[in-house]
C-alpha cells in the first residue's frame, strides 16, 4: 500500500487516490490483468489484494473487450468499476465496448455509466511503437467519454478521485514516464479536483503554452530557461481534454496574444488541432501570431533513443518554437 509520506510520486498518487476511493465506497473495485497478487505491471495496486481481497481486486484473463464490457454491465447496475489497461496501447482491443457501449449508453438510455478506465501511456521509456502510444485523440472524437490527463502528482490524485465519482465513462491516462520522476511538493490532498477546469501553472506575459500531461513539467522547465532570456511564458495545463476549459485558454491567449500548443501525440489530428481551432474561433482578433502546434512526427514511436528523441518533442524544439512565436 502506498503511504502518504508527503512526497508521493505520480505513481503513488494514483494508488493513494484509488485506495481512498475504495475505502470510501464499497461499490468501487479494480479489475484488470495482473492487478491482484502481482500489484499491476507498474505496481499501482501493490498491496491492494491484501487489503481489499479478491472480490474487489479482480485479476482477469487477457480479455480487454471482455473486462471492459464487464465493467459496463457492472456499472449499469450500480457498481463503480475502475478498469486498468496494462498499457494504453492495448486499449485498442477494447475499442468496441468503449465506443459502442460505454460512450453512448447514457445518451441512448439515460442510464448512468460510471466506469473509470486507467491506462499508462506515452513515450520516452524506449518502449517502441506498440508500447508508447498516446491514445487520447482516438477517443476525444467520440461523444460521451471524459478524458483526464494529469501532469502532476497532485492532479493525478484529485482528478482520479473525481473520475471515479463521475457518472460518465472516464478515460484516465497516466503518463508512465512521469510515474517515478515526479513527486508531490507537499502532503497529497485526496480531495476531488473538478473535471473540465484548466489551471494556469505559470503566469507569463509574452506567449501562452497550452499543454497537458508530460507537457506540463516539460513546458515549465523550458519556460524557466526562456525567462533568463527575458521571454515570459504563461503555461496552461488543461488537465482534462474532455471536457475542455475553453475559457481559461482563451483568457490567457487574450492576455499574451500568442499561443503554442504542445503534446507528445502525433501533431497530425492531435488534440492540439482542436485547441488551435478553438482559439481561432474564440480569440482570432486577439492574436498577434498564428497558433503553432508542437507534436510528434507522423511516425510510430521508435525504440532506439536517438530515433525516439527525433520523433517526440524535445526541450530544445519547444524552446525554439516559443522564442520564435514570442519574438515574432
Amino acid at each position, binding site marked *: 500500500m502506498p503511504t502518504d509520506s508527503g512526497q508521493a510520486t505520480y505513481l503513488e498518487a494514483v494508488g493513494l487516490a484509488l485506495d481512498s476511493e475504495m475505502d470510501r465506497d464499497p461499490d468501487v473495485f479494480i479489475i484488470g490483468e495482473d492487478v491482484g497478487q502481482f500489484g499491476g505491471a507498474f505496481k499501482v495496486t501493490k498491496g491492494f489484494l491484501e487489503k481489499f481481497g479478491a472480490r474487489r481486486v479482480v485479476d482477469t484473463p487477457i480479455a480487454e473487450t471482455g473486462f471492459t464490457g464487464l465493467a*459496463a*454491465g457492472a456499472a449499469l447496475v*450500480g457498481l463503480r468499476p475502475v478498469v486498468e489497461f496494462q498499457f494504453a496501447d492495448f486499449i485498442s482491443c477494447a475499442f468496441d465496448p468503449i465506443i459502442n*457501449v460505454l460512450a453512448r449508453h447514457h445518451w441512448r*438510455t439515460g442510464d448512468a455509466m460510471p466506469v473509470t478506465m486507467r491506462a499508462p501511456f506515452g513515450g520516452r521509456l524506449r518502449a517502441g511503437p506498440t508500447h508508447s502510444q498516446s491514445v487520447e485523440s482516438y477517443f476525444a472524437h467520440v461523444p460521451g467519454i471524459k478524458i483526464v490527463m494529469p501532469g502532476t502528482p497532485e492532479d493525478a490524485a484529485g482528478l482520479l478521485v473525481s473520475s471515479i465519482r463521475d457518472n460518465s465513462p472516464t478515460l484516465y491516462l497516466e503518463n508512465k514516464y512521469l510515474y517515478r520522476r515526479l513527486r508531490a511538493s507537499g502532503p497529497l490532498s485526496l480531495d476531488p479536483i473538478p473535471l473540465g477546469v484548466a489551471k494556469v501553472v505559470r503566469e507569463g506575459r509574452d506567449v501562452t503554452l497550452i499543454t497537458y500531461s508530460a507537457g506540463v513539467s516539460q513546458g515549465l522547465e523550458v519556460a524557466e530557461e526562456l525567462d533568463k532570456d527575458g521571454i515570459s511564458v504563461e503555461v496552461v495545463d488543461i488537465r482534462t481534454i474532455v471536457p475542455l476549459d475553453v475559457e481559461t485558454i482563451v483568457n490567457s491567449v487574450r492576455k499574451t496574444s500568442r499561443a503554442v500548443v504542445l503534446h507528445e501525440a502525433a501533431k497530425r489530428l492531435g488534440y492540439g488541432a482542436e485547441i488551435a481551432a478553438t482559439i481561432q474561433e474564440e480569440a482570432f482578433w486577439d492574436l498577434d501570431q498564428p497558433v503553432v502546434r508542437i507534436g510528434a512526427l507522423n511516425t510510430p514511436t521508435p525504440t532506439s533513443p536517438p530515433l525516439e528523441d527525433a520523433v517526440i518533442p524535445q526541450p530544445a524544439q519547444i524552446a525554439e518554437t516559443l522564442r520564435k512565436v514570442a519574438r515574432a
Partner: protein
Amino acid sequence: MATRTRRKPDAPAGTAIADRDPVLLRRIHEVMVLTRAVEDRMVAMYKGGDLLGSLYTGHWHEAISVGAASTLRTDDYMAPIHRDLGAHLWRGMEPWQVMASFMGKATSPTGGRDGTLHYGRLDLGIYNLPSHIPANFPVATGMAFASKYRGQDRVCLAFCGDGSTSRADFHESLTMASVLKLPNVFVIENNQFAYSTPLRMQSNSETFAIKAVAYGIPGVTVDGTDALAVHDAVAEGVARARAGEGPSIVEGVTMRMHGHAEHDPADYVPKDMYDEWSKKDPVELFENVLIDAGVLDGDAAKKVREDARQLAIAARRKALADPMPEPSGIEDGVYAD
C-alpha cells in the same frame, strides 16, 4: 463436464405436462402468441410504410425467447438480441413501445435517440444493446458480476445468434464468466444463417454447445422450436448459476423463417429448408401440446390469439398517434450528471 445434445424425438420430456404449473404454461403460451401477433402486425406495418427502416423479426424463435425468459425471477437480468421480442414481452415491455422504437417516436424506450431493434429497459432488468453483436455478452457478464459482488443470487441471461459466436466478444465473455464463475446462462439461437452466411461457413464446430467443453462449463443443444425443452435446459442453467456454480451454454436449434430483416428476400435459403421447417411452428406446436394435455381448450386458445391480435392492433394505433421527438435538447445527456 456435461456437453450433451437433446433432440426431441429420442428424449422423453423430463417433467410430464400434468406435473407442471398450468398457470406458467398458459402464460408462456400467451406471450408466444402475442410475440407472433405483434411481429405479424409489424411486418404489415413495414410493408405499409409505417416504419423508419428495416424490421427484424423472430418468427420461429418464440420458443427460445419465451422459453428462456420464463425461467427468470423478476429481479434477474437479461441481455437479449434482435430475435427476442418474446423475452421483452415476457418482462413487461409494451408492444407499442417496440413499435415506437421502429418508428423513431418520442415514446420509444430511447425517445427516438436510438431506434429499430435497439430497445431495452433497465427498470425491467433488460439491457438495451447496441448494433455490435454480441456486445451484449460482455455487458451480461458485468451484470452477473455485480450480482455476485453483492452476494446476491441474481442471474443474467444473455442471447446471441450462431454467427455471433465467431466474435471476440463471445470468446472473451465465455472465458471471463467461466474463470470468474459468474451467474450467467448464454443462450445461442442457432437459426441456420447469419444474414446470408450459412452454418457451414460460420463455424467448423459440430454444434455450438460443444464450445462449452473448451470453457470447462456445461453446454446443451435442444430443439429450439420446443418451448419446454428450451425452458427446462435454461432452468437448469439458471439454477446452477444461482447456486454459485457458474455459467453454462444452451443452444436452441431453429430456423430464421424470414429474411435477415424484412428488406432481405433471402433467396439464398434453399426452398426445401423452408418447407421442412414450416412444419415446426413453435407457437402452434406448443399450443397443441397444451391442448392435448388438457391445459388449454380450443376455445381458450382461440381467445388468446384474438386477444393478442387486438392488442397488436391497439399498439399500432397508439404508436402511430404518438409524437415524434423534439430536436431541442439533443445535446443533453451525452455526459451523465
